[in-house]
C-alpha cells in the first residue's frame, strides 16, 4: 500500500477528494431535520426569563409567553411578531426561525420606568457553510501535506524525522 502510494503519489488525491465530498454533502448531526423548540418565556418587570434563546435556522419555535406582574408585550425584531400578555393568561407564539442572526425581543407595552430596557435576544444559528468550508480547507491542507510527504519534496524534514 505504502509502496503503491510512494510510486504514484497523486493517488492520495482520491481519498482526500472523497473525504471533501463527505464533509460538503453529509449534513451535520442534529440538523438533519428541523426540531421544535418549546420555550416558556416569562415576562416580569423588567426582564424576560430566559433572556437569551438559542435555536437553529429552520427550527420551529413555540413560545409560551406569560406575564408575572403587569401587562407586558413581546415584539421580535426581524420577524415582526407582536403579542400582548396579561398576567394569568398565557399566549402562544409559533413561528419558523427561517432567518439566521441575532434578533432582539423587547417589551412592546409600556410596563414601567425601566420598560425601554426590557430586552431579550433570540439567536438563530445557521453558519453551517462556514464550518463546512473550514472542514474542506483542513482536509485539503492535510491532503497536500500527505502529497508532499510522499513525493519527498519536503525531503529535509523527512530526513530529520527518519534520522538519516
Amino acid at each position, binding site marked *: 500500500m505504502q509502496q503503491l502510494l510512494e510510486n504514484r503519489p497523486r493517488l492520495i488525491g482520491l481519498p482526500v477528494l472523497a473525504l471533501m465530498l463527505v464533509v460538503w454533502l453529509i449534513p451535520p448531526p442534529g440538523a438533519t431535520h428541523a426540531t421544535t423548540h418549546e420555550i416558556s418565556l416569562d415576562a416580569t418587570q423588567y426582564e424576560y426569563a430566559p433572556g437569551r434563546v438559542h435555536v437553529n435556522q429552520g427550527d420551529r419555535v413555540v413560545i409560551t409567553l*406569560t*406575564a*408575572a*406582574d*403587569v*401587562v407586558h408585550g413581546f415584539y421580535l425584531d426581524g420577524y415582526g411578531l407582536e403579542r*400582548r400578555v*396579561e*398576567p*394569568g*393568561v*398565557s399566549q402562544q407564539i409559533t413561528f419558523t426561525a427561517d432567518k439566521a442572526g441575532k434578533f432582539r425581543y423587547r417589551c412592546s*407595552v*409600556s*410596563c*414601567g420606568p425601566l420598560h425601554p430596557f426590557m430586552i431579550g435576544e433570540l439567536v438563530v444559528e445557521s453558519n453551517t457553510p462556514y464550518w463546512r468550508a473550514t472542514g474542506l480547507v483542513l482536509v485539503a491542507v492535510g491532503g497536500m501535506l500527505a502529497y508532499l510527504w510522499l513525493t519527498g519534496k519536503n525531503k529535509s524534514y523527512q530526513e530529520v524525522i527518519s534520522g538519516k
Partner: protein
Amino acid sequence: MRINTSRTELVALVSVGLIVLGLPAAALGYQYWLRPATAPTHVIDIDLRVPQDGGFAPEAITVTMGEPVTLRFASLDVTHGIAIGPGLGVDLGHVDPGQVKEITLTFDHPGTYTYYCNAWCSPDHWRMRGTLQVIDPDNPGFVPPAQSDPMIQALIVEGVDIDAKHEEGHGHDDDPALEITRPLSAQHGADLLDSVTLPDEVIDPLWRRSHAPTQALELLGTANPQMTQADLIDVVAYLWTADTAPETILNAQVLYNKNCAACHGQYGGGDGPAADTTAENPVIFADPAFMFEMRSDVLYAKIRRGGMGTDMPNFGTLFTQEETWALVEYLWTLPVQLANQGEE
C-alpha cells in the same frame, strides 16, 4: 426727549402682570371652565394608577340621570383595563400609559355602578375599583337600596356557611374522600346515559344547582347498582356541564381570564402568577375531587360575596347575576373534558 418714566414702568408692569398671571389663568380657565361649559356632554377625567399609588382619581363620581356623561380614562403608570358594571356591558379593554380611552354613557335610572380595573396591574390590583353613583335630579338624596340576592338569602336560611371550608360544610366529613382515578369525560357520560336510571332529583337543574355532585353520585349509585363508580362519575360530569350553551361559556371564559385567572390560573390549576400573594392558596377548580364536593349555588355566593378570609375579592358589585351563573358554569368545565357539542 423726556420720557415719563413712571408711566412707562406702569405699562411694563401691567404687561408683565398680564403675561405672568393671565396666561396660566387663560389656560386653566379653558381646561376647567370654558371646555366643560361648552362640551356637549359632561366630561369627567379619571386618572389610573396602581392602587399603592392611589388607584383611581377620582375614585367616586356622581352623575345625573338623563345627562350624557363622558368618562375619559388615562393611565399614568402601567397598563390597566377598564370595565364598568354590573349590567352595562362596558369593557374598554386595556388602557396603556399615555393612552386615553373614553366612553359616553346616559343613565336612565338612579343606581350604583363600579368602574374597575380588569387587567392585573399590581399585587393590590383587586382593590382598584371606583364607584359611579347615578342620582335623580328631582330627588338627589335617593339611593336605591341594595337588592338582597335571593340565592344567597336561601343559603343563609338553609344554614350553609359559605365562609367555611368545604370539607366542613355539608356534613361529608365521615365519607371517605372520593377517588377519581381518570380524567372526567362528559362524552363518556353522555354515551352511558341510555343505560343509566336517572333519579328525578338528578334530572332537575335546580336540584343540581343546590347540591354537590357527590350527592348526585350517591343517588345514582343507589339507582344503578350495576354501574361502576368511575362510569357514574362521568355521568355526573356530563349532567353538570350539559346545559351550557357554548357562547355562554365563551363569554364566561373572557370574564374568567380577565378577573380570575391571575390567581386561580388560566386552566383552574390555582397556579396563576398572583397565587402566592393571597392569604390562602386559591382553590383548584381543575381538581375534580374538590369540585365534586362543591355546590353551584355556594360557588355563586362565594364569587358574589368574596371575603372568606382568603383575599378573594367580591364580584357582586361588578357582575350581574347572569354573568356570575355563567362563570359558575364555566368553572364546571375546568375539571371536565367536555362532550362534543355537535353530537347533542
